């Protein structure tokens, strides 16, 4: 645990030591603003909620999270610092967890920077703050899911561009799994159980149900176990490929 925190602190510090953190947060705020106010019709709807704000999160994360996760391990492998990191007295698993938690905390900070919009909607009307809070939790959980996938893929290569593109496509599959277009591909020949399984892997299904204001344990377990599985795979891949 202590070693995980040591790595977490170093990583988080590294985000803010370079312009990466600031650029990311500014772009994130700009894009959420544009999407919420122009495309989401925040004012035109005349409803005191943040539905148009959260509606775009799965798509926004699709682009932005792989941009964070691509460097996690690919950069360490490229520059050789992985050898420095993994010969310190901690396990590969602790290093994977520490780096993941730092990236997750960082997206949490970016998400926290959007809270003025929460204040705004409270000034304009009388929203259900419980629902908004739940949606924030859901968004953070979903960000964790994207990050775990991205971190795992970043461990497979020492090329950050490849890590970015493959992560983006993989995350897209997890979004699309719930859309009718994808499910239609299975209907007709696959049994219902397969279709249900595919759709149950969709980030959209789980995020939308939390964003409605119900933090269902099943949705939390979904994201939690997804993060756990990808970080475990991340550790195994790293142990197998670190010497290359």
């Amino acid at each position: 645990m202590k070693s995980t925190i040591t790595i977490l602190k170093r990583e988080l510090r590294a985000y803010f030591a370079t312009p990466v953190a600031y650029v990311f947060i500014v772009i994130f705020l700009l894009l959420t603003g544009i999407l919420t106010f122009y495309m989401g019709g925040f004012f035109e709807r005349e409803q005191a909620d943040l539905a148009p704000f959260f509606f775009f999160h799965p798509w926004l994360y699709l682009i932005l999270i792989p941009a964070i996760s691509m460097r996690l391990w690919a950069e360490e492998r490229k520059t050789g610092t992985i050898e420095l990191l993994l010969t310190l007295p901690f396990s590969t698993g602790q290093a994977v967890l520490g780096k993941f938690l730092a990236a997750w905390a960082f997206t949490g900070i970016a998400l926290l920077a959007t809270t003025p919009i929460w204040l705004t909607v409270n000034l304009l009307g009388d929203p259900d703050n419980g629902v908004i809070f739940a949606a924030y939790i859901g968004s953070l959980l979903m960000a964790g899911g994207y990050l775990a996938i991205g971190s795992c893929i970043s461990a497979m290569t020492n090329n950050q561009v490849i890590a970015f593109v493959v992560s983006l496509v993989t995350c897209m599959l997890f979004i699309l799994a719930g859309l009718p277009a994808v499910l239609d591909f299975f209907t007709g020949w696959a049994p219902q159980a397969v279709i249900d399984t595919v759709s149950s892997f969709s980030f959209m299904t789980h995020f939308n149900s939390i964003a409605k204001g119900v933090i269902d344990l099943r949705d939390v377990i979904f994201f939690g176990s997804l993060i756990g599985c990808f970080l475990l795979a991340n550790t195994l891949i790293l142990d197998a490929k670190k010497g290359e």
Partner: protein
Amino acid sequence: MIEIQNLQKSFGEFRAVDGVSFSVKPGEVLGFLGPNGAGKSTTMRMITGFLTPTGGAVRIAGVDVNVDPISAKKRIGYLPEGAPLYSDMTPRTLLEFIAEAREIPSAERASRIEKIAAKVNITGVLDQQIETLSKGYKRRVGLAQAIIHDPEILILDEPTDGLDPNQKHEVRQLIQEMSKDKVIILSTHILEEVEAVCTRAIIITQGKVVFDGTPSELKGRSPSGRLDDVFREITTGTAPVTA
């Protein structure tokens, strides 16, 4: 202290290390010699627990590195090949991180960093971004992170590579100062370095140990008395060129 038994490492079909065995005691400075690609770095990476051997074992103070890597890693200070460092940090923040990871009590960290920085001559650049440092400084920051916790075992992969003659001399002196109660294994391409600092030399080529003895024994093998000639003879099998 370090026992290496029939160590092997394959990458696919390629046998990088092919049955290396030796042991090293405290007080010994072991020079690892061999042509590029002979398996020096791969062997060092297995000693430090970074790579898992395909066969054989590395034991540190009786404990197999693969069975209990963390306790082995605690005893080791390691300078990896090329001295990789987090370039967006400063030497001070990097050493703070290493000191914390090495479990040096927080009250001692600042003074320890000052002391080590003075030892390897990086005091002036402690707060400069590592990215902007010269190759010589980077190498010395790498050395500083390897010795900050005063390890019993020091593994240095080409510690003087990229240093100017004066800096080389300083680093060799530093190694000699530390050698009394430590196990030091260093790899090098510079044969005088072996004569200058090592008590023992091992030459490996194509993953096998082809010489294990003192530097003077190595020198004695050559009729010309030149290390270069013996090295070439041992590693390529050609007769030495005698003038």
